């Protein structure tokens, strides 16, 4: 047993930290918040150059063929700087769905492009019902003249306005069951597809409404077997959830760092506020939350890499815990900073808002606790 990161992984961490501290400064993040794109071409090209866009894709597609434990290191560092832009939607949603469900030709085309920074992707899954189960999939893909016709509305779709390709979750059989759910590859500018960028509380995450109105696609747009995509989708989302947890851990750690730094220098009643037990105890609670969040996330990343039968449980345990932990830590960070923590000028609100948007991505803690309850046969 060796439940720690390797030297190569620690090297990846220090490389990522240095790169992101230089390239993804608070000024950069704030500029991206104000624009629809959420990323610059220059920054995206640099991510490709680092090899991070293809980190978890096979070498035959120009990727590095690394696993989720490696990715965890990178995600923690990205969360640490609240990195904006379509990395998550491209690499871990659209890209991962193509990796898991795509045909050889689809994989070759899109994963190669994504890894090289030449294409962005996303996953159009949730709908206005905001459900995470199969019954929530009501958009339809009806077979017609050897192809598919898509109809319906997707909501909370990350970065659809930037995506060169959207993986759409659609129902090819009527009903509410898991059986009948399919994945369809929808290229940008397909006629009948309308993307609308939505104003969001967390401006570092861009969310869209995507409407399909009699959008026609050829038969080879189908990924995997017709109607059998639900288990694959679950697998993709579990992996994306683990990566999200890692990103959240990185953000929570940064909030703790900022808060302890501040508690050492901010003077009240003639002493640094970190001298007072009211502050110390809350900071200690934050540390416990952060360390526990990491423990569960690292385990989930390992379980995913090992294809362990416990991976679904591990992912839900992590998301349930990390969601609460990041929310609590970010809230405590603001509280311990006092008034300055409530300002637009201070970066804390970026983390506070990221904690909130992450909370409702792939299910909140109540949802995942119930999933844990089911998986342990309660």
């Amino acid at each position, binding site marked *: *047993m*060796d*439940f*720690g*990161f*390797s030297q190569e*992984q620690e090297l990846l961490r220090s490389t990522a930290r240095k790169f992101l501290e230089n390239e993804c400064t608070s000024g950069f993040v704030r500029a991206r918040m104000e624009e629809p794109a959420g990323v610059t071409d220059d920054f995206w090209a640099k991510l490709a150059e680092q090899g991070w866009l293809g980190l978890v894709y096979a070498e035959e597609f120009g990727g590095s063929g690394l696993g989720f*434990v490696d990715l965890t290191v990178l995600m923690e560092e990205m969360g640490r700087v609240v990195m904006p832009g379509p990395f998550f939607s491209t690499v871990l949603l659209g890209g991962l769905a193509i990796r898991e469900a795509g045909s050889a030709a689809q994989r070759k085309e899109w994963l190669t492009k994504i890894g090289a920074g030449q294409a962005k992707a996303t996953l159009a899954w949730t709908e206005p019902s905001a459900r995470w189960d199969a019954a929530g999939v009501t958009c339809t893909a009806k077979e017609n003249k050897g192809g598919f016709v898509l109809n319906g509305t997707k909501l909370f779709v990350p970065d659809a306005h930037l995506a060169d390709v959207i993986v759409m979750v659609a129902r090819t059989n009527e009903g509410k069951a898991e059986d009948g759910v399919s994945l369809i590859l929808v290229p940008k500018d397909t006629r009948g597809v309308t993307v609308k960028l939505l104003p969001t509380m967390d401006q570092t995450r861009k969310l869209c409404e995507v409407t399909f109105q009699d959008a026609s696609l050829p038969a080879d747009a189908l990924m995997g077997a017709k109607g059998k995509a639900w288990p694959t989708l679950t697998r993709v989302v579990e992996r994306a959830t683990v990566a999200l947890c890692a990103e959240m851990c990185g953000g929570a750690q940064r909030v*703790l760092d900022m808060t*302890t730094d501040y*508690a*050492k220098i901010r003077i009240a009643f003639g*002493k*640094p506020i*970190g*001298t007072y*037990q009211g*502050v*110390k*105890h809350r*900071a*200690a*609670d934050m*540390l*416990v939350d952060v*360390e*526990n969040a*990491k*423990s*569960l996330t*690292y*385990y989930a*990343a*390992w379980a995913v890499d090992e294809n362990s039968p416990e991976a679904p449980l591990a992912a839900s*345990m992590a998301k*349930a*815990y990390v969601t609460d932990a990041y929310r609590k830590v970010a809230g405590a960070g603001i509280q311990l900073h006092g008034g300055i923590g409530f300002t637009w000028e201070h970066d804390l609100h970026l983390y506070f808002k990221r904690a909130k948007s992450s909370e409702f991505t792939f299910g909140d803690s*109540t949802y995942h*606790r*119930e999933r*844990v*309850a089911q998986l*342990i046969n*309660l």
Partner: protein
Amino acid sequence: MDLSLTPDQEAFRATVRSWLKSNMPREWKPTGSSEIPRAGQYEFLRRWQRTLFDAGYIGLTWPKDYGGRGLTFMEELILQQEMALAKAPPILNVLGVGMGGPTIIAWGNEEQKKRYPAKILSCEEIWCQGYSEPNSGSDLASLQTRAVKDGEHWVINGQKVWTSFAHVADYMMLLARTDPSVPKHKGITYFLLDMKLPGVTVKPLRQITGEAEFNEVFFDNVRVHESQVLGGVNNGWAVGLTTLMYERLTLGFGLQMRLRIALDGLVELAKGMEKSGRVVTKDPVMRQKLAQLWIDTECLKYTGARAITKLLRGEMPGPEASTGKMAWVDTHQRLQEIAMEIEGPYSQLVKGSDWAVEGGVWPHSFLRSRANSIEGGTTEIQKNIIAERLLGLPKD
């Protein structure tokens, strides 16, 4: 990162497992709640520890010369997990094994190291810990029990309190003030005190459970030979604290597994009880609470694995080694509260009532769990330590 075991470690696990299967005492009846040595079981538990010792299943990481087996923390971890999984009886000499022995091995002279540790493991000599006093709890360094030099002896006067096992102990790890003229941390010495010496009086203290697990200990001109000083005169603070981290880690793994066993017991309890005509595990609110307990309990395992990994790699323990106790306390106390919630009105009935659920074990362990956030350093002190040592916040 790899959580799997090597073939050797797997083989060790199999050996331990089969040994436990064939050597589990027939008279032992495990309960669902977490097991701690209870008054009335001491003679049985003494024999059990002796059995473990004879089989080489205690003190695995201690050097061979001093009664141990010179193995790594991995074998210790595997052993603790298997003991918990098998619902084996607890170790009686828990303070000696967890703290006394490792401290003597770390600080003792050769004579002391030959004399004491093996008898700690075999349970021939039970140890208690003389740290807390009526006026020195969290502020331990302010302790007032005095030791004054008189020829080759130190003469001890004063009082200790909350001393678990003192009524059965052969020896005490005693902290006493040997120099009142220097700052409080610098005038303390660590003694290995024979509890049979004249002038030592033990008075049981009845606790919240109604049992007398712990005691007051009085010293009236107790003469201790100078050879019983451990780690040098006025060096007791360093000696006493050295092994705390180590102790938390090794005991921590056993605690995690016992927590898991208690949780399994709790789930069984929940499946067998109803609330408002519905099985407890079908109640959405209770499902949330039980799932959270499950997550928190599993989390302790992974936090422990991170800490052990650092030790195995020869690195300094990180924050994860210190947050474990706090997280364990919080989870265990919550588990016991939820057990009461599951039992509902039945939680009021204890041992002796035919109506008591599972013979009233849960109300007992619920009451006992209140000590968790006090014993071995209160949660408040733990938080101060974490804030100051790990986060670098200034001392007052």
